[in-house]
């Protein structure tokens, strides 16, 4: 990482939904990496172009070769991140009628780093009218001793389409996970569609019990938002038990959206569940 002298800092609140008084703005570390990468896609009447493609810190952005009118951007990790104290942000915008897919080349590994201070990783996704945005990163791995607060803030115009997949792997093979706190907020046509907050790994209370993860180490979501989505149908259940992983695909209340929620013992089973859920979601949508 960029700095060799990371100083200890008092713990910041564990839960962004309930910050302790007076400590709200103190996350990040003076010597951590502060980086904001930006992607802006526009539609020029023929194809999607990328007038802004700004790499920063650990995010090296690369335009991938694609056919058709869509643009695809790959994010390549230029350094190990996030480490404790880092403040990372990704700003991704598909303007009106643009069609943009963003992926990451490899899993994102949250590590402890030289400080136990939390790192922050904020992803902001914006899609304009008739735009199509696909955010399909590789999993985020919460390694032992890491401390990461992640947010994903999505703003969607009424006629936009979104496909979002988030996967979290709690600990590398046979290690306890770090502390991973995430909040996702999705607005559609100005209305709140989804607001969810999760906290896994010690010292989050109760996270591994039978009402939250029950020993599973891979958890993920897939969100499909599409103006013409048929959300009147019954939820789809994947797998009957819970031991080998399970998922549900169900409509949200506030807009044309389907959300799949899945838990699994490991990443491969999780991806299988989410892929299956995607198949159901697209079948529902009638493409």
């Amino acid at each position: 990482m960029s700095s060799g002298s990371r100083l200890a800092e008092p713990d910041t609140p564990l839960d962004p939904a309930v910050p302790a008084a007076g400590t709200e703005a103190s996350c990040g570390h003076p010597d951590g990496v502060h980086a904001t990468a930006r992607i802006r896609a526009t539609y020029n009447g023929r194809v999607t172009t990328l007038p802004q493609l700004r790499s920063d810190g650990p995010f090296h952005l690369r335009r991938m070769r694609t056919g058709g009118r869509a643009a695809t951007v790959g994010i390549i990790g230029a350094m190990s991140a996030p480490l404790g104290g880092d403040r990372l942000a990704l700003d991704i915008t598909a303007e009106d009628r643009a069609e943009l897919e963003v992926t990451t080349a490899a899993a994102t590994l949250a590590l402890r780093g030289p400080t136990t201070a939390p790192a922050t990783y904020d992803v902001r996704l914006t899609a304009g009218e008739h735009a199509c945005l696909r955010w399909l990163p590789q999993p985020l791995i919460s390694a032992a001793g890491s401390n990461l607060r992640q947010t994903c803030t999505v703003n969607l115009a009424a006629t936009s389409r979104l496909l979002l997949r988030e996967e979290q792997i709690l600990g590398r093979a046979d290690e306890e996970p770090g502390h991973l706190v995430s909040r996702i907020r999705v607005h559609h046509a100005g209305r709140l569609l989804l607001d969810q907050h999760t906290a896994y790994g010690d010292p989050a209370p109760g996270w591994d019990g039978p009402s939250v993860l029950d020993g599973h180490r891979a958890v993920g979501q897939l969100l499909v938002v599409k103006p013409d989505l048929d959300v009147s149908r019954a939820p789809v259940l994947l797998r009957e038990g819970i031991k080998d992983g399970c998922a549900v695909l169900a409509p949200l209340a506030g807009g044309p959206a389907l959300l799949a929620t899945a838990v699994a013992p490991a990443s491969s089973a999780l991806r299988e569940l989410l892929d299956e859920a995607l198949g159901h979601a697209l079948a529902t949508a009638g493409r």
Partner: protein
Amino acid sequence: MSPAALLLLADGRFPAGGHAHSGGVEAAVAHKAVHDINSLEAFCRGRLHTTGLTTAGLAAAAAAGCDPLMLDDAADARTPVPALRAVARKLGRQMMRAARATFPSAELDRLAAERPRGAHQPIVQGIAARAAGLTPEDAACAAAYEAVGGPATAAVRLLSLDPLAASWLLARLSTEADAVAANAAGAAARVKTEGLDALPSASSPLLDITAEQHAAWTVRLFAS
């Protein structure tokens, strides 16, 4: 505030329909994830810090006088599966009936007229608390306690657990429940300056998934 009013509102015998709901524990018992007092305690602790915190925040905000219709939308956004939205609204209707009969209030009447199919239960509970002269933290406390009391009672029936051990479990969780209620009330107090985003949205993947599984069963003892 009246401590007796809080006891009445939080009493498991308050006739608001809660006795027929297991808070997800029936599904967890079927999956053998809850099978004894220790696994029940882990279940309750997880539920307290996820659903419990979120509902306590909504109840506190309603008790503090936030617009109940906006809170109802916020509750929808925090409840991603239809089975739990349906349960929350059904229990909201039942809570509304009991609350209007017990703590008559124009605010309850107004919400009942505006949401005839039911508002999310913690919002009704918060307005009932308000009508009873209770504080937002009282409302949060009632919601947080209910988040663990319901599953504990249901598990006693489902697994024939020792009710004394279950009571002890609830006593062990009481400090955490108080802390959750205090957090929730603190968040509700920040709504004025930060908007509804200040409210907790803590969630649990397994409660969502297994609630839909449970709703699809043809044979079950509890409604949720």
